[in-house]
C-alpha cells in the first residue's frame, strides 16, 4: 500500500494506517532529527512532534509531492524550531564544544551514534549548511528533493553543500592536528 493510500485511509478514520505510516518513516525521521539536533532525547522529541503534526495535519498533504518529502519537510521545520528554542534557552550559539559522553549510554545506542568527531564537526556547521549536507550527503536526497525540503533554490542547495563540506573539512582537520605541511596560498 502506498503512502498516499495510507494517508487516505487514515483520513477516513483508519488509525492502523497512521501506525503503518509511522513505522515506515520513523527511523528516517529520527535519523534526520538526530543529525540536525545532535542529541537523542531532543531528536526523539522532534520526532514525536513531527508525527503529531502529521496526525493533526495529514489533511494538508495534497499529494503534490512525495509524501516522504512532505513529512521530512515537517521534520526539518520541527528541528529548526527546536534549535531556535534551544539557542534561546541557552543564550549562546550552536555548541562549539562536545557535550560529555553519557557514561550510561548503552552499547546499542553507541552503535548507532555518529562517530564523535564527525558528529561534533557537524554540530559546528550553521544550521542551513548542516541541513543541506545532512540531506544530500548523509540522507542521500537529490538536489531537487533537498531544495523542496528546504524550500530554497537548487543553486542555493549546491552552494550550501559546497560550503558545508568545506567548513566540515576545516573542522575535521582541526580535531587531530596534522603535521605541518606547506600550503600553497598563492591561489
Amino acid at each position, binding site marked *: 500500500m502506498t503512502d498516499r493510500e495510507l494517508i487516505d485511509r487514515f483520513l477516513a478514520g483508519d488509525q492502523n494506517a497512521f501506525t503503518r505510516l509511522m513505522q515506515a518513516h520513523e527511523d528516517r525521521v529520527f535519523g534526520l532529527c538526530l543529525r540536525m539536533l545532535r542529541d537523542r532525547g531532543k531528536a526523539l522529541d522532534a520526532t*514525536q512532534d513531527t508525527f503529531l503534526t502529521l496526525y493533526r495535519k495529514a489533511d494538508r498533504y495534497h499529494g503534490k509531492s512525495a509524501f516522504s518529502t512532505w513529512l521530512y519537510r515537517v521534520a526539518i521545520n520541527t528541528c529548526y524550531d527546536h534549535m531556535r528554542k534551544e539557542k534561546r534557552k541557552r543564550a549562546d550559539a550552536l555548541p562549539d564544544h562536545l557535550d560529555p559522553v553519557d557514561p550510561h549510554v548503552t552499547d546499542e545506542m553507541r552503535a*548507532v551514534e555518529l562517530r564523535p568527531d564527525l558528529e561534533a564537526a557537524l554540530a559546528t556547521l550553521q544550521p542551513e549548511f548542516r541541513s543541506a549536507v545532512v540531506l544530500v550527503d*548523509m540522507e542521500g536526497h537529490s538536489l531537487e528533493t533537498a531544495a523542496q525540503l528546504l524550500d530554497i533554490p537548487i543553486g542555493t542547495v549546491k552552494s550550501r553543500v559546497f560550503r558545508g563540506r568545506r567548513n566540515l573539512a576545516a573542522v575535521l582537520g582541526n580535531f*587531530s592536528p596534522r603535521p605541518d605541511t606547506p600550503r600553497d596560498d598563492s591561489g
Partner: protein
Amino acid sequence: MTVDNDRELPDMPPEFADVSPERMEVLIDFIDGRLDESETAIFEASLTENERREVELQRAVRSILDDAPAVKMTDIERAQLRTAIHDVAGTRSRRLAGLLPAWQGRVNWVALGSVAASLILVVAAATVLSNGVRFSDGDEGADAIAIAESAAPTTAPAAASTTTAMDTAGALNLESLQSIEEPAEESAADFSTLTIIRERDVLEVLDETPGPPRAYNPDNLECRDEIIDGEVVFGYLGAWTTDAGRRLDAVLFKVEDGRRTTVLILDTRDCSMVFELEN
C-alpha cells in the same frame, strides 16, 4: 586525523572568494558527477590547481559523510515514541499531557503533579476564553491584562480590582469582570482574587469562545515558539495556583488547527507543558 585512520583529508585549498556562484555550481556538479561525459572533460580541463585540490577535498568529505552509519532508534526509544503518539492519537478529547511517558523530556513533572486534575486558574483565563481579551497598546504589556469588557479597557493598578468571575456554585459570571492585572508579588492575599476553574469549566468556556479574538499579537508572549502547529488565536500570561497552593506563572494559548481547538498552558520558567486540553 581521527575521522578515519586510513583516510586523511587533503590539504585545504584557499577560500574561493574569487569564484563566482555559477562557477561554484558547476564545480559541485563536477565533484558529484552530475555533468555528462563531454561536460566533464571540458570542465576538468579548465580546473585551476586550487580547484583541483578543492575537488579532492570535497570528494573526501563526501565520502566520509556517505560512510556514516545509518541512525536507528533503540527499542526503548521506539516504544516511547509509539506510546506517546498512540496515546495522543487515542485521546482526542482531553488529557494531561504529562501523563504520557515519552513527554518526560519536556514536562515539568513537579508542576504537573501539583496541578493534577483540579488545576486552579486565574479568573482571567475564563474571561479570556469567553469574552476575548485586549492588551495594552504596544503589546509589551503582555503581563498586564485588560479585559475588553467595555469599549475602553481599563488597567487596574493591581489584582485588587479583579472581581470574581464564578459564583459559589461554580457557574461563570463573566459580566462582573472589568480588568485584571497580574499580581505584582506573590502573597496569600493575591490568591484571594483567584477563582477555581476545573477542567470541565475550561471545556465549557471553550465552547463559549467567541470568534476571532485576535485582539493582540500573541507572538510576543513567552513560550510562543512552543506552539509548532495550529494557529494561536490568542494567549495570555497569568498567575495560576496549584492544589498545593504553589504559584505557577504560566502562559495560556488557545490554538486552532481547523479540526479542533486546544488550550495549552506552559510554565514560563522553562516552557514545559503542564496542561493540554482539546475539544
